[in-house]
């Protein structure tokens, strides 16, 4: 198949100011790719027919002699377009079947394979090997207990996610018999669009310095989840207030110190810090009285 593609028909720029003018993270990446195109091609050529050096964190509490954490080296043959997940899967399938990690969809939807790759939380299936320096150091997500190899205990993360009541609540749901839909305005949909992209991978929570030190902090992902529902116009004011009451507690939005770590690592480019800041303003507005 030819790699040459027809230029797609130019689309009209969307009216929404959020989508216009400011560069989206994807556009930025595309631009970076374009500008570094020859470089990339070179490095890919260099790697062709070569091996990728992986250093993978290993730990197994059930096998004597593996209870002491260590790093294993794997040399995986490089293929064009190889991701970190592809590489560890090859290592598991061909070299060491005991190598354990979570993965499922392999296309950045399921959120299972967030690893700590070369000192940064990344989604294994979304990280190209060519973009990384070798040896590629793959560790389980920091600030979570390691169960085995690259598998971490996500219970706490899920607890925090559920703590913000991540489901639609509305007393005025029309009766099913009426066959009436609960419509959302396109503007409102745009507003919560980015927040709805969360795949629960836990990369943000793991990167957050505050969450690391404060176990009760809701964390970026949970707050983002709350944002999605709090900003939904279809929910009543009373429920929005109820949501803000959860968020404005001591270990809620105010713990965020705007380090932007979460925003930086989010594989779905969710502007987490922006959402947290907006909820902070909402919480203040709700409590502000001038009389």
């Amino acid at each position: 198949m030819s790699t040459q593609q027809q230029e797609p028909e130019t689309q009209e720029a969307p009216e929404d100011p959020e989508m216009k003018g400011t560069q989206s993270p994807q556009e930025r990446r595309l631009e970076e790719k374009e500008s570094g195109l020859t470089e990339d091609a070179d490095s890919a050529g260099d790697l062709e027919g070569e091996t990728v050096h992986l250093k993978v964190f290993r730990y197994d509490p059930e096998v004597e002699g593996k209870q002491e954490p260590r790093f294993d080296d794997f040399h995986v043959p490089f293929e064009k377009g190889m991701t970190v997940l592809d590489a560890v899967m090859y290592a598991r399938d061909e070299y060491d079947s005991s190598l354990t990690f979570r993965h499922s969809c392999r296309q950045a939807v399921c959120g299972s394979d967030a690893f700590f790759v070369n000192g940064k939380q990344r989604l294994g299936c979304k990280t190209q090997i060519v973009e990384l320096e070798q040896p590629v150091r793959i560790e389980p997500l920091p600030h979570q207990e390691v169960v085995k190899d690259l598998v971490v205990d996500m219970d706490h993360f899920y607890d925090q996610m559920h703590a913000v009541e991540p489901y639609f609540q509305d007393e005025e749901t029309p009766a099913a018999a009426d066959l009436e839909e609960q419509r959302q305005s396109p503007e409102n949909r745009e507003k919560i669009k980015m927040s709805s992209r969360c795949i629960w991978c836990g990369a943000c929570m793991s990167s957050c310095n505050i969450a690391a030190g404060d176990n009760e902090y809701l964390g970026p992902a949970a707050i983002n989840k709350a944002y999605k529902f709090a900003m939904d116009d279809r929910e009543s004011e009373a429920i929005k207030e109820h949501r803000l009451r959860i968020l404005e507690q001591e270990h809620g939005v105010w713990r965020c110190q705007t380090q932007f770590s979460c925003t930086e690592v989010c594989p779905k480019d969710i502007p987490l810090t922006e959402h947290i800041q907006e909820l902070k303003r909402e919480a203040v507005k709700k409590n502000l009285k001038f009389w």
Partner: protein
Amino acid sequence: MSQSYNRGLIEDFGRWKEFSAGMWAWIFHKFTGWMLIGYLFTHIAVLSTAIGAAQGETMMLASEQVDVYTGTIQGLESLFIIRVLEVGLLAVAVFHILNGLRLLMVDLGIGLTAQDKSFYASLILTGVITVASVPTFLTGVGL
């Protein structure tokens, strides 16, 4: 779960090379904040000599009888190390102010996508202002 392994704090200062702009901004803001609080105490200590001066207390400075407030300040200002510390204080204060403005913007939700650039800008501006202040701070002091 039978057993699990706690890796502790991973992103400690040993990994400082991997810190992002926002992280550095946070660390510097904390650091400069504590420095300014520390300075506040020395500032109060020096200024409180004015109480003594108002009551007519005097001291000897370069074989001259001056009031205790003037004497303390002039005595400190004649020290080279104090001048250097003053340049440092200015740098710390300027960074805290500029990054504070940056954080104000962040709180208002303005330009969050440019937060790293605004951090670098405040760093560079701090550097420029500090360098520009050196002649003023270091005039008339012998090494």
